[in-house]
């Protein structure tokens, strides 16, 4: 049987509530929403979703929804040297984007345009995508570029 799961992911899925305490992140993502946890005591916005606050070490966290748009702070692309299971995805364009309206700079893969057509400050939109083994993950999409050679 052909193995399709990119192996930079967990060898075994860990997105369900039987496996992780932040399964809600993946449930929300499936519904098209980006979320994370925030400390109720000191307001620290935590990324990735945590179960204890590294600032006050409390465990009283709440889920908050994050904006789905951001502006590119930096980007590049993996032109050679993909991890196992991702060789067919080359080039893999990635970037850091400052979310609009939340103090968070998020890293992710970028689809919709290749690196040659991107610029710092350009708007990106967070979207979920399906990963084999019934998983979900997030990535950025840019509008207006040529279609990229990707799983988009």
């Amino acid at each position, binding site marked *: 049987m052909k193995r399709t799961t990119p192996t930079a992911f967990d060898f075994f899925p860990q997105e369900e509530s039987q496996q992780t305490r932040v399964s809600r992140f993946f449930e929300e993502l499936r519904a098209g929403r980006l979320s994370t946890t925030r400390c109720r005591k000191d307001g620290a916005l935590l990324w990735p979703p945590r179960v204890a606050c590294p600032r006050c070490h409390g465990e009283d966290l709440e889920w908050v929804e994050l904006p789905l748009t951001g502006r590119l702070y930096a980007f*590049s692309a*993996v032109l050679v*040297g993909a*991890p196992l299971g991702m060789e067919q995805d080359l080039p893999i364009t*990635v970037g*850091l984007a400052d979310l609009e309206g939340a103090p968070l700079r998020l890293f992710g893969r970028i689809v919709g345009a290749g690196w040659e057509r991107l610029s710092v400050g350009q708007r990106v939109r967070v979207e979920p995508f399906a990963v084999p083994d019934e998983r979900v993950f997030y990535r950025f999409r840019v509008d207006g570029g040529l279609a990229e050679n990707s799983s988009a």
Partner: protein
Amino acid sequence: MSTGRPVALVGGASTVWGVRAATWSELVQEAGARLFAAVPGLAAADVDSLFVGAAEPERFAFQSHVAPLAAELLGLAPHRIVQRTELACASGQSAIRSAYAAIAAGLSEVAVVLGVEKMNLPSMAEANTSMACVMDRPWDGAHGATAPPFFAMVAQRHMLEYGTTPEQLAGVSVKNHRFANSNPDAQFYEKKFSREKLLGLPLVAPPLRLGDCSSMTDGAAAVVLVAGEKARQYTDTPAWVRGSGQHASWHNLANSGSLTDWVGMRSAAREALGSAGITAQQLDFAELHDCFTISELIEYEMLGLCPRGQGGRYLEEGQTEIGGDVVVNPRGGLLGCGHPLGATGVAQAVEVYRQFTHSVPPARQVPDPEWALVHNLSGSANVHSMMVYQRGS
């Protein structure tokens, strides 16, 4: 800062580095043979401790519990401390720092430090997967990213904020490859790289080209550290450990802050230089972690050798060449020598000893060096490790 009793590095050796037709265990054996040849006074029975710097033997060599395996291969029976250190690209220096701490604290008298990595496998995709593990793997690595696109973003920001040019990046590579041409242990010992040739190599992660990136390398290196009062049994010219510093503050890329201001490196430098009681300007040479060309330029700035944003100009002025302010990477750097993760920091320390004892070819000999600094970053430049050495006489 008082840091226990004096500790000296009294010798070391490296294997030949490159794409080696040799296994992880064979590289360890080669390093051992070369170490005992390079340090004639070294008796296995006197070695009470062994520290092994190895980043990912579980993935690259499918082997855990590597410290006792290395002890067996080196013919050592450590009875004080035997351990492995893992700190990705700084695993080797981490092992040296652990040996230093153990000796300074009186827990060890004679310690061998071995650094080793076997990285070249038939499947480079498998090796790239290992490199993705160095990042916050489920959240950052899972996007398909490894080190090159991260440092490419660093370069992009440095170019945007300060006007750094591809030619300046290539200049780092030209210098370090030229030094490597006088280092027979180096992966690129026999390869010549001009700026024009480097600028014509393919892009790996724009704006970084192949010549801006250190390589996947197989190699090992080893050094001996001893309590100060024993140093003269091994050498007339000990390299005294005078300072040490380290800083870690984040791991996930979302928490990186400015890509061009490496706060952790400035902190580690304050700690390392401060504990040695010197300034960066007093250094005669520095082994800096040039995993990518952009790294070395920012490292000049974070060490305080030049103002922020001026790393490219500082290089172009020749300040890091022999005859300049502070010679940087006379060994050939990671760019010229290759970067077997666990071995790099140990080989840098070998270079310190060789420079202090004037035992390198003239083309890379720093004139009469007294002070040297060794730096490794690891991961996404989120950890910085540093040591300062002074030549004894």
